[in-house]
């Protein structure tokens, strides 16, 4: 799973309702892998408004990945920024480990790059 996808996952356990804690899910004991992908600037610029930047920044910090605090004013003309963005959201893959909710402590396992978001009956 790439970080662009992690940026859309939130805890959905029944009694876990604090929006500030359900998202982003915190990575725990994860293994990362970089896989090179073709860079498409038009795509990146289009995706940018769909990304929750604060959440991405938080996640990047946890993983010791450098990312500017703010999105530049005109990202389309900022090649360096786009290159970083591409590497972070599209080339950084989380292989194994888990994602933990800071609200309820639920741990979502990641195996072979696939996060398991299924919940047990009593958690729904």
């Amino acid at each position, binding site marked *: *799973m790439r970080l662009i996808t992690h940026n*859309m996952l939130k805890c959905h356990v029944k009694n876990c309702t604090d929006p500030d804690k359900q998202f982003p899910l915190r990575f725990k004991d994860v293994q990362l892998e970089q896989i090179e*992908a073709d860079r498409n600037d038009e795509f990146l610029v289009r995706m940018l408004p769909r990304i929750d930047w604060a959440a991405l920044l938080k996640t990047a910090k946890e993983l010791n990945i450098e990312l500017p605090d703010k999105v530049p004013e005109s990202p389309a003309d900022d090649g360096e920024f786009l290159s970083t963005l591409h590497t972070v959201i599209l080339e950084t893959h989380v292989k194994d480990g888990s994602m933990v909710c800071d609200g309820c402590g639920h741990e979502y396992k990641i195996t072979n790059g696939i*996060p398991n978001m299924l919940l047990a009956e009593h958690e729904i």
Partner: protein
Amino acid sequence: MKLKLFEEYLGDVIAFKEPKIQLEQYPTSAHLASRILYTAENTYGDIDGKAVVDLGCGCGMLSIAACIMGASSVVGIDIDHAALETAQENIDEFDTGGTVDLIQASICIETSDGLLALNEDLTFRMSKKFDTAILNPPFGTKPGNKGIDTLFLQAACAMTRNAVYSLHKTSTRDYIVRKAKSWGFECDVLAELKFDIPMMYKFHKKKSVDVGVDLVRLYRKSG
């Protein structure tokens, strides 16, 4: 790419190893998958450079097809671990350059009165994150699955900004068109197909039944 070659490539996608009837696990054929994605790209420009989501991705046939047609990012979601393992094998085999992510999750949840509802808490943050959705949903013909096809379609519409490609029983066409309207989408029927669905109904003696199926394209009404 020529359609014929595209179909040939997709012929290498491995299908469900042990299909689970309750989850309505029958694969989209390479023939059909190639035609859906070929049309989506060449007639409508909905795939190349786009963010695509595949709901009930199973072994990844449609996700991989989207990838080959140039999707910039694909997310496949399925409830079943075994199917996703096979999907990952297929993805590795196709060397999709890490463009496809798989998530194990359920699109629906069971409500206290035994009916199905959208798993809104899960899909909440996926709202409008994709350009295009492609899906071959369960038709809801198994006990307890009633309405799952419409819920999949609703989830797909919520997640996409542009277009949704889906397959639905022709017998439900009017209902689908009405539902689409209520979500702010127009619905075009692109093709009428016949599906040979294995063991769709328990009470049938036959091994499989032919079902009329529509390939539909839903798109947001402008404005």
